[in-house]
């Protein structure tokens, strides 16, 4: 009789707790504003305490399984389950204090919060069900399983808040990455200085707290428009005036200053990054300017990779030898491609020999055909070198008829036609090639026709 009463009491208390948890976000809204310091003080214990329910909850199924062989462990399971419910509650309260106190908001925070609430209620349900049925019976195992799935999801949301949502996938092996999500376009001008240099700084250093997942100080820096909109203190970027821009002020404070950004022990921005941000703001904080005078950013060029040919090395070497040429890798990274070197073959190398290399066309990134016997007939063959970046045709009989077929080569950035008979009309189609940055026409009719 007393036992039944006890259970009823516990049931009622659990019900009320669940209601309270569900109402919490509506009573104390996460409004993106900071609140009392004591809330933040306690709240910052959340990351520590949160591991307690994780560990305890994971222990429960183990004990349940092991209890089949040692019944004493079944008793322990109930105890651990009760403890995990209590620790869930504690972690949840602390987590809420952290978010509420420090003014966190955003979709990620909300997901993590709702996950935690559902998780706590689920764990509570497990405990009730288990004590009512006196053991791991009825639909308790299914409920426990769903609680564990929820645990994994909620924990991942929490991890994404602290480490950023690319933390897990950043070093994912490339083949697996293909299945992952594409990156979000942050700017309408992917070639702009903002998109190439400023946004990546924000993305790597700021967006963890000022992004879609978590919005501190009501400021989001994950897109250009949001960055310009500013936060609770108004605009943080004043075009043309870095000194008055809160963003620049914060990143240039002494690192031990309370308002220094990035905060909470994250590494400060590098001096050159600060210089780029300053120059970018000073020159108007434009979303589309491609370069800033006086600012030079050395970019690690990532070469486009050619398909894998590592299995064909002997075949390639033999074909090249029989043609009297060499096909040498650009670097020890075979994906950088092959260079076709014809200097030893000279006039013995013509269109027919080039056609013989066609099986390896996608691997050749640089074709040195200067001073060989190739003619205009080589151009349709070269057009099949889909990964070609540089083409040397200097001092050959090429007249330029059919040069337009080279427009099929998207990566071609270097074309040397010096000492050939190409005319201005013949090279006209090349103007459509976006990547062709180096075109050499020394000693050609085309160069003489130009003013």
């Amino acid at each position, binding site marked *: 009789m007393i036992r039944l009463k006890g259970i009823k009491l516990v049931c009622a208390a659990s019900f009320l707790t669940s209601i309270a948890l569900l109402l919490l976000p509506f009573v104390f809204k996460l409004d993106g504003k900071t609140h009392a310091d004591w809330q933040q003080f306690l709240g910052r214990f959340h990351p520590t305490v949160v591991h307690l329910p994780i560990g305890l909850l994971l222990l429960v199924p183990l004990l349940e399984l092991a209890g089949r062989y040692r019944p004493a462990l079944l008793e322990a399971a109930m105890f651990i389950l009760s403890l995990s419910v209590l620790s869930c509650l504690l972690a949840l309260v602390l987590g809420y204090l952290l978010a509420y106190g420090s003014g966190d908001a955003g979709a990620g925070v909300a997901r993590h919060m709702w996950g935690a609430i559902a998780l706590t209620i689920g764990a509570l349900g497990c405990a009730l069900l288990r004590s009512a049925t006196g053991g791991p019976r009825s639909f308790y195992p299914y409920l426990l399983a769903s609680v564990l799935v929820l645990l994994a999801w909620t924990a991942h949301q929490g991890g994404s808040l602290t480490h950023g949502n690319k933390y897990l996938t950043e070093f994912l092996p490339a083949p697996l990455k293909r299945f992952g999500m594409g990156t979000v376009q942050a700017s309408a001008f992917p070639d702009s200085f903002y998109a190439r240099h400023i946004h990546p700084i924000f993305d790597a250093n700021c967006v963890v707290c000022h992004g879609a997942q978590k919005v501190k100080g009501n400021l989001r820096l994950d897109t250009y428009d949001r960055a310009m909109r500013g936060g609770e203190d108004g605009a943080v970027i004043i075009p043309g005036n870095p000194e008055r821009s809160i963003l620049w002020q914060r990143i240039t404070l002494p690192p031990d200053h309370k308002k220094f950004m990035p905060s909470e022990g994250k590494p400060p921005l590098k001096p050159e990054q600060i210089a780029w941000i300053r120059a970018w703001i000073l020159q108007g904080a434009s979303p589309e300017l491609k370069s800033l005078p006086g600012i030079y950013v*050395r970019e690690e060029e990532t070469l486009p990779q050619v398909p894998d040919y590592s299995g064909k090395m002997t075949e390639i070497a033999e074909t090249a030898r029989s043609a009297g040429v060499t096909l040498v890798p*650009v670097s*020890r990274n075979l994906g950088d491609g092959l260079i076709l070197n014809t200097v*030893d073959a000279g006039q013995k190398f013509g269109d027919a020999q080039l056609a013989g290399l066609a099986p390896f066309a996608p691997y050749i990134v640089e074709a040195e055909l200067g001073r060989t016997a190739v003619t205009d007939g080589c151009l349709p063959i070269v057009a099949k070198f889909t990964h070609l970046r540089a083409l040397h045709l200097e001092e050959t009989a090429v007249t330029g008829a059919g040069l337009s077929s080279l427009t099929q080569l998207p990566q071609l950035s270097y074309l040397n036609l010096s000492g050939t008979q190409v005319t201005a009309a013949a090279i006209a189609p090349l103007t459509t090639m976006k990547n062709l940055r180096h075109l050499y026409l020394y000693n050609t009719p085309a160069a003489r026709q130009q003013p």
Partner: protein
Amino acid sequence: MKQHPLCTDPDHGPTIMDLPLAEGLKTEWAELETRRHFLGRAGKVLGWAALASLGGERMLTGDAHAANVVPSAQSLRLPHFAPKAKRAIYLFMSGGPPQMDLLDYKPNLSQLYDKDVPDSVRGAQQLTGMTAGQARFPIAPSHWAFKQYGKTDTWVSDLLPYTARMVDDLTIIKSTNTEAINHEPAIMLLNTGNMNAGKPCLGAWLSYGLGSMNDNLPTFVVLLSKVNPKENNQPVSSRLWSSGFLSSEYAGVAMRSSGDPVLYLSDPKGVNRDVRRKMLDAVNEINRQTSQELGDPETNSRISQYEMAYRMQASVPELTDVSREPQSTWDLYGPDAREPGTYAYNCLMARRMAERGVRYIQVYKRGWDVHADVTGMLPVLCQETDRATYALVTDLKRRGLLDDTLVIWGGEFGRTVYSQGGLTPENYGRDHHPRCFTTWMAGGGVRPGITFGETDDYSYNVVKDPVPVRDFNATVLHCLGIDHNKLTYKFQGLDQKLTGTTPASVVTNLLA
């Protein structure tokens, strides 16, 4: 009784070459055979024992496959990363050009004429014997005016009107510095990374690491420019283009400034190409036997050098035949270029070699050691070099070669701001100065139109971004796709490298 296999007399059993051993071990065995030979073939058993100990050690260290004694360009698998430059041309101004008279503009010096260089600037520096005894160190401002040129507004001396036209293409380094104050150690340090002779030079490392780009010309060529007897010429010797402990096939092939570019390349009377071929085949056969017997890698380099010389009999005349050069070439390089052996001619040759797949070309111009009569000698030196240097860079650029060719200009050190010997308003001398000197690079891999590093108001000390020789060389290697820390060769118990044992770093701000 069954004998232990290592104790049998090898004459009656399989030779070591028949055993299923790692190729590297066999090579090393062949080397050991040399020692056996020395002992008059008396130590066969000793030799087997040596192999056993060698094998044992290798098996313990698990290193048997890595035991390739003479790594080849293929086994090194270079470049380490995709390079910007495939080849390099080094214009070496032997003797030490005076930086403050050419590119390191110091406008304040004119007011300090004949004042002493402050002790605080000189510090406790040990000077050369040539000026250490001087009672005074009077400042000698540059005799020449400077003007700004190009989009980059770079200051260039009136002595270099042609260089001034291409400043936007140059990467000027004002803060190069060295530890050596005398010619031989300084020029050795620049070329080999070590003041003492015996180390491979930059060109040898490149030949060794990157291999040849063509069959008919050497990978590394040195062009010695004609000497002007009026200038103060310091000797340059083959130690500067030596391969050191690397196989001698990686050493530079020096071309002479007069007569046959390469001695004994033309066949003697009565010997035609067929006779030469037969003779070479016979000599090669003998060499191959020697190689099999002794396993000395130098025998193989000898074979390859003979073959190279044979091919050069055809390729060098073609290389030096400038009759088909268009008039625009002569307009650019100037009349000096028609005379074989001049600096201008060598610059033209450098371009022709670059076109023909020579990996590394070093042009030496001597005479920059202006201890006295700067106002008399410097205009001559600049007149000899300025136009041709400009012509080379411009020619490479218009022909599309500068994209993947790194051009380097520099000497072994700089010169003092104070006058050596008497200072008059008309003339002065300058002593060796290792603490700062100006060099420049252009082309593949480096960032055009910048000036890097700063010196103080006296062009005496580096005050910003110093570039020591080892960093300079590390940067050059980087442009050619080589990580200077990874291109090493084990010798005398050390993984030797061009940049030496003091940690060196690539100057990334110089890179494009």
